[in-house]
């Protein structure tokens, strides 16, 4: 059995132990990595709510995965934060895992910083930094409740190697992801005593619509499939939830 198969059965096991499924919220859930995560978590038996801007796309995913709950919303817009948070909480009855995945590239096509419009940098910061900050803050009470009830309480912020390395023309995206990465680290330290973990996860270069916008002529065969990264992240989340809840880890459980 492949490792992720074992872990997948572990999410079912978590459900059995708790009498309730793992509750997962994913932003940017209708394309790329987000869509793959919605598929993976849902297949694994988690209860999933996802957020995306386009109503047709949200309804398409809900039609395909009827057990998931789609929310139309834009995390980059401050005034929508609580409407999104409330719908997540009503749909799932709380939240154990929040994955801030929705991302904006900044200027398209990519541009040198000197050619980047201020508005494009602002948009990248709104989606990649302020959005995750605001939604996490609105859901923090629920995540703390998840921690107190030993249900895992994990925030995953999707990062990028552009957060670490200085790639020319990736300025808006790289700077916003670097800020998100550091926010994750500080918040992780601050929230550790409350039992909430904040993780920065770099999924690698994937064959996604965002990547196609950035590098239109990339050879897809040289890119990671988003499904592969999604499986890696589901495995990691499952393992961390098991750690936090003292449910035996999958390999020990076998």
């Amino acid at each position: 059995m492949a490792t992720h198969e074992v872990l997948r059965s572990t999410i079912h096991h978590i459900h059995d132990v708790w009498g309730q499924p793992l509750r997962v919220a994913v932003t940017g859930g209708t394309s790329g990595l987000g869509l793959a995560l919605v598929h993976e978590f849902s297949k694994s038996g988690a209860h999933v709510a996802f957020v995306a801007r386009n109503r047709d796309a949200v309804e398409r995913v809900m039609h395909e995965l009827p057990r998931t709950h789609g929310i139309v919303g834009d995390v980059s817009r401050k005034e929508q934060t609580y409407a999104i948070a409330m719908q997540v909480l009503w749909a799932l009855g709380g939240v154990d895992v929040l994955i801030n995945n929705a991302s904006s590239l900044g200027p398209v096509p990519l541009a040198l910083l000197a050619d980047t419009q201020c508005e494009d940098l602002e948009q990248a910061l709104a989606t990649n930094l302020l959005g995750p900050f605001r939604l996490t803050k609105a859901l923090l009470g629920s995540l703390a409740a998840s921690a107190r009830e030993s249900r895992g309480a994990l925030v995953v912020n999707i990062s990028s190697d552009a957060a670490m390395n200085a790639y020319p023309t990736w300025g808006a995206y790289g700077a916003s992801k670097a800020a998100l990465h550091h926010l994750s680290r500080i918040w992780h330290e601050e929230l550790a005593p409350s039992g909430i973990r904040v993780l920065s996860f770099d999924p690698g270069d994937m064959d996604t619509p965002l990547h196609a916008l950035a590098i239109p002529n990339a050879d897809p065969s040289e890119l990671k499939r988003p499904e592969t990264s999604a499986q890696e992240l589901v495995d990691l989340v499952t393992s961390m939830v098991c750690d936090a809840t003292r449910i035996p880890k999958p390999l020990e459980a076998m």
Partner: protein
Amino acid sequence: MIAASIPIQRPADAKLLVVDAQGEITHHPRRDLAALLNDGDLVIANDAATVPASLFGVHLATAAPVEVRLAGRRSLEGEEMNVFDAIVFGAGDYRTRTEHRPVPPPLHVGDVMQLVGLRAEIVCVLDHPRFVRLRLAGSPHEIWEALAHSGRPIQYAHVPSPLAIWDSWTPIAGPPVAFEPPSAGFVLDWNTLQSLRERGVRFATITHAAGISSTGDPQLDRRLPLDEPYRIPATTAAMIRDCRVRTGRVIAIGTTVVRALEHAAAEDGFVRVGFGTATQEIGAATTLKVVDAIVSGTHEPCTSHYELLRAFVDDEILRRVDLELERENYKTHEFGDSILVARSKDVAKNLGA
């Protein structure tokens, strides 16, 4: 007392009146709350977030404008997300004090109100002409979306600027099930939680769907608080047992916490885990079984919040509290100052509970 009119949850100069177990009164800056609690104490807050429960629309049969304030639900267990008890107001908005608002048109079973994004049918007129049970049309998914986008938090006439939903969520807010904020929880920010932890004070939550606090109608107000569903997590009940063993105090943040815990322990003094609905009134005649002290906003005599304090201390102490609150210019209402009252009544009955 003067009404707090600015929606700031934690003003830097917020005050805290403390009544100790001997009935002695002292005044403190509210930010020093954690320093007044001891190693072994257990602080319990209500983590309900506030639903945007005020909905505007039209009563179709008469074309009269109405405001519907969702006021209660029968259960937190997930069924019947589309059925709410509600109070209907006539034209106008929060800028008019509730007691001066025009009455809505006569309401009958089967009447439909078209609200922004939501269609509500009256399925039952409860024991007052403006107090009705509503069924909202649509799937839970559609109802949640419409409520999230069209509902407004219930607003008070003494706060002139429009309240945003984030003004009404406490920093620890979780499940959106309360119809008005459990506002005593405004005292708790994450820094206070950290200070509590550093002092060895433990922290737990319950979820209690706080109902509407005032209707502007004396007859309806006498019925308050409405029945309120709640949930007690197993970890919270375990921490209460542990606190008893360590002879710490159970400190409730707000009246809703007192109501839920005392209801859940009504049978034998042990807090029952899970879902329940608090139906009792707490007052001078109540013997508290669980809660040793309460942090609350300041409230005027004759309100249900005030009545609840009579379970903690006798009337002579409350009279002194009222005088001190007046003398020191405490601010009242949701965004006002706070009190911490230790129980001095019936203490002997509880030892060893």
